[in-house]
């Protein structure tokens, strides 16, 4: 275990989203979640889609925009300790391929959900709010921004 030693890749967290096969795994993960929710007997299809959208966006918000730092020690004395995973990706370079992919996926999921809920008003409001919670932190203007001091340290 070489945690804490000098390595040319200072923070491996920055490269995780670019690794081979992770986009496919992510899409398959969403599919798996959807199938599990579909197998619950008494919920209707629109509710299942809204639930998929909500749970996906909630997990994305928690893992990409709430959890800070790295799960292992890095040799750069904790430069990334206050950064969320989204801010660490590619060392903060904006508009890379992984960032675009992770921005587009919730949008596509939102389109599918709107279609399958037949544009019902209540579902629309819930899904849109959920999409906004996931899209707004991804804007480059929000890099390192902590509203009201929440999640600062």
């Amino acid at each position: 275990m070489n945690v804490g030693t000098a390595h040319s890749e200072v923070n491996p967290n920055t490269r995780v989203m670019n690794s081979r096969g992770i986009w496919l795994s992510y899409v398959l993960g969403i599919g798996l979640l959807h199938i599990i929710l579909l197998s619950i007997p008494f919920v209707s299809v629109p509710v299942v889609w809204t639930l998929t959208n909500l749970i996906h966006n909630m997990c994305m918000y928690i893992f990409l925009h709430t959890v800070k730092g790295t799960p292992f020690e890095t040799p750069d004395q904790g430069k990334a300790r206050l950064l969320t995973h989204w801010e660490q990706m590619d060392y903060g370079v904006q508009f890379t391929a992984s960032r675009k992919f992770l921005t587009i996926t919730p949008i596509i999921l939102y389109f599918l959900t709107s279609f399958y809920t037949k544009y019902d008003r209540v579902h629309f409001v819930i899904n849109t709010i959920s999409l906004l919670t996931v899209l707004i932190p991804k804007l480059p203007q929000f890099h390192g921004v902590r509203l009201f001091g929440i999640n600062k340290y």
Partner: protein
Amino acid sequence: MIRTEELHSCNGTLKSRSGQKQTENYTLKNGYHKNEKVQKNGNGFHQPRVRGEDSFEEAPMYVAVLTYMGYGIVILFGYFRDFLRAVGLEKCHQAQEREEQKDFVPLYQDFENFYKRNLYMRVRDNWNRPICSLPGPVFDLMERVSDDYNWTFRLTGRTIENVINMGSYNYLGFAENNVDFLKTVAEKTRQYGVGVCSTRQELGNFSIHEELEQLVADFLGVESAMAFGMGFATNSMNIPALVGKGCLILSDELNHTSLILGARLSGATIRVFKHNNMQSLEKLLKEAICSGQPRTHRSWKKILIMVEGIYSMEGSLVRLPEIIALKKKYKAYLYLDEAHSIGAVGPTGRGVTEHFGVDPKEIDVLMGTFTKSFGATGGYIAGKKELVDYLRCHSHSAVYATAMSPPVVEQIIRAIKCIMGVDGTTEGQRRVRQLAENTRYFRSRLKEMGFIIYGNKDSPVIPLLLYQPGKVGAFSRAMLKRKIGVVVVGFPATTITEARARFCVSAAHTRDMLNKVLQSLDELGDYIRVKFSRHRRPYRPELYNATNFGLDS
């Protein structure tokens, strides 16, 4: 005037990369040349040598998906167990702050230890195994068990004997305690003692040190050499003496920690080029020379290219002739770290310079260690006399570190004399040839079985890819049950998808030992399903076991 079509240099032909169609018989694919030939030197010093290709086969996509699934499950369980520990349902084995200090700024970073707590602890019994014998081709391990899932270990008192050693860097088998071979070491210990009690610059410069350095210089074919007490410290203490602020270091992506540490300590600007990728290196060189230092745009004082002979995690060989051509074209310096390759490659064991047919005087700084092929400790730096004389005055190691201990020096001297044949036997050459034979045999058998192996076909370091975190632990434990000791590595030392087991073949391994290891690997590979290679070749036992290839047999 540099012609842009083609530049002939002594050791390779450098073609321009301006998008012209390559009409030669080799194609460029991801920077790998297939079967390019090295041209002869002007004085006919070495034979032209065909460099085998490094192979970095990728596993099928489902393997990557399953690997991420494995990590995902472990992470979810990690959060769950952390929750149980926080709530109090599970005993917390880690250090915790005292009750009175719970409101202070936390002393122990909880999240940074997440990986160690929840993944590393589960498989921790595969590392730091206590060895109680010589690390030769077979060794003895002390048996240890854990009662609380690897948080603490206790030794049972029993020894696991005759475990085949596939992890020690014992390439030429000099880690031995044969009394005949070690006679000179005993004599010199009687003469000089064990401790030196001084630095090289003060009162620690013994005649045996001078003898060693002269011998190393003769062995490598250069003017002069200097030896240091610790291999890691050779890099980290001497690179700051060679380059400083205002210099540029171009280092390979997968360089060892010691090189990176030395580069960082020196204060020079570091730029990283992709592993063994000559286009990336050339692009960096061009940019560096054109734009100079950042912000001031003054020219760089020195440009130093740092590469290794054999990369120990990948088993790949450096593309030496091409790098030398590039360095001559752009007037940069080359620092070659032959830690794993000295003694292990090349027809007479002189390292990658001999393997590629390159004159060692073309490389500016030749560095190597005595820990791997020579069975001792320490490192050396060799090159022109002016360079080494400069290092004798300015190296941190020469001024502050204690000199090498005499029995260790004598062990290196006897190992080098054995390899060179100066001691009057052919034992050294036998070992070098045995190592090459073992390497080729082991690699080709593993490829035939269908494992994914990285690296060049001539390198004795053989990483076998396991990919999934669960298999890493399972593999190592199952191999130990079959009395074979292997080294496994996982994330974050490697990339997240490429956890591996690393085999180091030794000249001391007999064919029977290798066959036993291969048979165990075969069974185990089928059982835990790591045979992902899509290039399987059929196993032809008659080619390995036949003694007579005549037509009438």
